[in-house]
């Protein structure tokens, strides 16, 4: 069997880009390293272009160990977009607070490569490799502001807990391998269909839920996320919330719907309970938060809960719902965190109270924050409403309570989202001087704003794309 390298164009290009950025950082004198970010963005844009053009060049490598299908392509495009937006939106923040560390951009690129590998992984080893590449990159990124105690603390917490979750994931994978005798997801499905549930498999499944639940920050495996989100440099938080979460969902769907669909009876209720707990705890604990990054961390836990609803259904429509939601979630989250970073640049605070009168100081930033938060709350006509609609619509008989809970908790979420809005729009600023955003940040915010509104009003095309990608999921 021939090995078609052209299927790996995106991965190879990312690898080359990462290395080039790294080497460039080494050779360029430290005074002129500011262009490195722009170089990274241009490179990522190029890779994004290649990926979009090649999206229908599909196939399998090494007997299904690596799957290049529409599903993977969708997530790859999503990761690349997220990486571009995150880097592009926070040049200033990185300059001022992360310092002149040239490894920053190449590490972001390697984290993205890890996610890309995860989206295409067709077997346990590849999956684990991609996940580790992503996680280790993130551990470095979280601790990047090590001169500041919080960042370092977050880094160490993330290092230890991620190692723990990796161990559990790996253990789960090995148990599934033990029960089925194969590491290729497609063959696992056949083995499970033939052999049925065994104790080994059930324990393995639990471990996998725990390990991946950690990555998507689902309750009760979420404990790390508020501390890490708060301590990490804001662009990293943003990327963690968007990229790491989406990649882990991509893997979750592959494993559970692609490999363990036969055991749906066993895991559906488990996932449903995790979804319910995430919605409940995430939204409730977000209420008393005073730090915006912590608040967004809890909100992101709740969002993971909503997305898990799509997994419970385990149908094509469910997959479509997850993909659609993950996509719009990128823009709303990056938009909100970009505002947080921009505001921090000026006032050096993440306290919600310090956002008073933001609309007078930076009208665009306040508007974007408003729209992104309302989208997360699921208010029509914004994208989040359509996303939740697609997710909740898929829910099958017996799990209707999940939808009711989701709707009630969405209502609760409006409370703490609007509290931020109230502070921004109603209160008078302590210091009325305007907050400069810079053109790159302005553009990023604008993209987030427009996408969030347009996807809400005209979701058709994206829904269509997600639908096609979801169909390709079942072709293996």
């Amino acid at each position, binding site marked *: 069997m021939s090995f078609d390298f052209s299927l790996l164009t995106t991965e190879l290009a990312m690898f080359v880009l990462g290395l080039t950025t790294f080497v460039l950082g080494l050779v360029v004198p430290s005074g002129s390293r500011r262009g490195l970010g722009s170089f990274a963005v241009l490179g990522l844009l190029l890779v994004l272009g290649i990926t979009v053009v090649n999206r229908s060049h599909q196939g399998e490598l090494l007997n299904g160990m690596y799957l290049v299908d529409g599903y993977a392509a969708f997530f790859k495009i999503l990761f690349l977009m997220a990486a571009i937006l995150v880097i592009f939106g926070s040049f200033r923040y990185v300059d001022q607070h992360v310092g002149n560390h040239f490894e920053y951009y190449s590490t972001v690129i390697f984290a993205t490569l890890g996610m890309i590998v995860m989206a295409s992984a067709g077997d346990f080893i590849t999956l684990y490799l991609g996940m580790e590449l992503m996680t280790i990159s993130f551990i470095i990124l979280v601790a990047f502001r090590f001169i500041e105690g919080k960042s370092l603390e977050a880094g*160490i*917490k993330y290092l*230890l*807990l991620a190692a*723990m*979750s990796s161990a*559990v994931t790996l253990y789960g994978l090995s148990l599934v391998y033990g029960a089925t005798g194969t590491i290729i997801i497609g063959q696992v499905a056949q083995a499970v269909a033939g052999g049925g*549930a*065994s*104790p080994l498999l*059930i*324990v393995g*499944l*639990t*471990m996998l*839920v*725990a390990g991946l639940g*950690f990555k998507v920050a689902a309750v*009760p*495996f979420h*404990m*790390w996320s*508020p*501390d890490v989100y708060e301590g990490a440099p804001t662009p990293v938080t943003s990327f963690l919330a968007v990229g790491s979460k989406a990649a882990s969902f991509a893997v979750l769907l592959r494993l559970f719907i692609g490999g363990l669909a036969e055991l749906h*009876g*066993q895991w559906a209720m*488990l996932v449903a309970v995790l979804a319910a707990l995430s919605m409940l*705890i995430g939204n*409730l*604990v*977000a*209420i*008393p*938060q005073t730090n915006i990054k912590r608040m967004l961390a809890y909100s992101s836990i709740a969002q993971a809960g909503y997305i898990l609803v799509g997994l419970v259904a385990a149908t094509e429509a469910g997959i479509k719902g997850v993909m659609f939601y993950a996509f719009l979630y990128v823009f709303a989250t990056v938009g909100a965190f970009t505002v947080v970073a921009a505001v921090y640049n000026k006032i050096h605070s993440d306290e919600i109270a310090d956002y008073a009168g933001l609309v007078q100081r930076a009208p665009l930033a306040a508007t974007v924050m408003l729209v992104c938060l309302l989208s997360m709350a699921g208010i029509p006509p914004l994208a989040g409403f*359509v996303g939740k609609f697609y997710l909740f*619509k898929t829910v099958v008989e017996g799990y209707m309570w999940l939808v009711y809970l989701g709707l009630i908790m969405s209502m*609760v979420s409006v*409370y703490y989202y609007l509290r931020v809005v109230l502070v921004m729009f109603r209160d008078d600023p302590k210091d009325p001087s305007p907050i400069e955003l810079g053109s790159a940040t302005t553009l990023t915010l604008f993209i987030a704003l427009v996408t969030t509104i347009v996807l809400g009003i*005209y*979701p*058709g095309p994206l*829904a269509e794309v997600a639908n096609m990608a979801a169909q390709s999921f079942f072709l293996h």
Partner: protein
Amino acid sequence: MVQFALNHAWLVPLLPALAFVIIVFLTRPWPKVSSTVSIAAILSSFVLSSSIAYGVFTNPGFIEKPLVYSLRWFGMEGFTVHVGVMLDPTSTMMLFMVSMVATLIQIYSTGYMEGDPQYSVFFSYLSLFAASMLGLVISSNLLQMFVMWELVGLCSFLLIGFYTFKISAREAAKKAFITTRIGDFGMLLGLLFLQIVFGTLDLTELAQRVPAFEQFGISLGLLTLIAILLFIGPIGKSGQFPLHVWLPDAMEGPTPVSALIHAATMVVAGVYLVGRTLFLFAEVPGAMEVVAFTGAFTALFAATIAVTQREIKRILAYSTVSQLGYMMLALGVGSLSASMFHLWTHAFFKALMFLGAGSVLHALHHKADVWDMGGLIKKMPITGWTFVVGGLAIAGIPPFAGFWSKDEILAVTLEYAKHGHTLGYVLFLMATFTAFLTAFYMWRMIFLAFFGKEKPENHPHESPWNMTFPLIVLAVLAAVGGLIGTPWANWWSRWIHFGQPHHGEPAIGLMLLSVVLALAGIGLAYLLYYKDEEKRTAQELAKRYPTLYRISFNKYYVDELYQWFTRTVVDAGANVLYWFDIHVVDGIVNGLAGITKTSGKGLRYLQTGKLQTYALVFFVAVLVITVVLAFGDPTSAGIMGGGK
């Protein structure tokens, strides 16, 4: 060009919408740029509409088979919504007329609104208004139409309340919005029923499915209910009795807005909607009768009010209500052709008269009472004579436009009566009497305002060219615009009709009757308000029949009735509910909110910040899940217990 226009008809509403966005986000600080952008957009729409009109009206194929194309907007199983374009002679005529009148009104506004601090904002609203109306006209399905319908409502709210510093303007805007909203609610219910019963809101599909309604398992009674619910929307929007109350108050907006609302957009939207869904109404005779009687009654009712009003724009407003009644009447007796024809001619003469009234108000610094005017025609010849043309048109003097369309309506009503609808004669009588009243109150206004003695305290002057130019264009149209639908060469009904085209013989007797009535009305006005310089007879009449006069002047106390109803019944009910809300609902809600907040605060303490706790929670959770999965579920328990 023609083919391009036909294929890109969606550009017609899109261009003004774009102008709105540009003005709001870019050109707001520069008034002249804003108005130029706005006019350029609507003018392009007009050019495009003209090309479309040329394309449609040279190809008879469009009569039977409209050009429809659409785009999927969103959907789920069993419910798909498209946005699309539907071009047939009716919608094309509307596109052409709306874009033309809107263009003229925007040009006029550059003069009328000169120097207003909110000049740019005004033009952005006008653009949005035009965009929504054009979008409504072009819609290929009822949901899209409803969205546009609401947008039109929103724009009317913004424009009627444009002078936000005036309390009366704010109140009028609210009244317009809320009153039409009552109608919209009925309409929305009708649309929901249609979607549920027929599974589509697409006009073409509905037109095929509705006649076979029995196959969809509904009775004639339910279909009648649907039709009447749907009709409630137009009752609100087109100012039909009893929801007409907002329309005269809407005069609080700047005069170009009144012209736009009352001539070409908004109010005719209701008539257009009924025209568009006539296939539904035609199935249910009961609903048709409701439409016809609502129309005829509104026509007569509003005309009797207009007779005693004193403010120039208010007289015009009631005349609009009355003329809209005519259009509804025509639809009710089943003639799309006559109704649309009257809509067409009315747009011209009513826009003309509103803009003329605006010109007068501009000259007299907003002194609105016609009794305070007089002899204006000498100082304002263009405004005056074009106004006279409008007056002749609305009174129904041949060959002016209004004569042909009104005559057509009378003719179809009479025919309806002859075909076994005995009540049709009542409709006919109401319509003919209204024709007489129309001529009378219109010419009463004209004699009082433009002729007779000049008032020394007034210093009128002719308006600038950008205000008189639209007047002249509209006057020409008001004069000759009806010639395309004369009974001898009825080009109009060949193109725009529902069912079989109407081939009535020219009814000379009827024409004579309506001319005589019109002349009688004008003559009476002449005697009372021109010949009799002191207006003694008129005052004498008012004194001799004080009750009649007061009822008419106070618009039959409908507003007062609504107010009384609101104050007693609604407020009393509200008080009961208020108590319930404060003591029961709020109690529950506050309690729930309290619980939510407290639990949030409580749960927060689980987050200790200690790494050990986090790891502990993680592993305990894994353990708990394994145990539950293993022993909670009977099948798994069996497996765990040894695989039996």
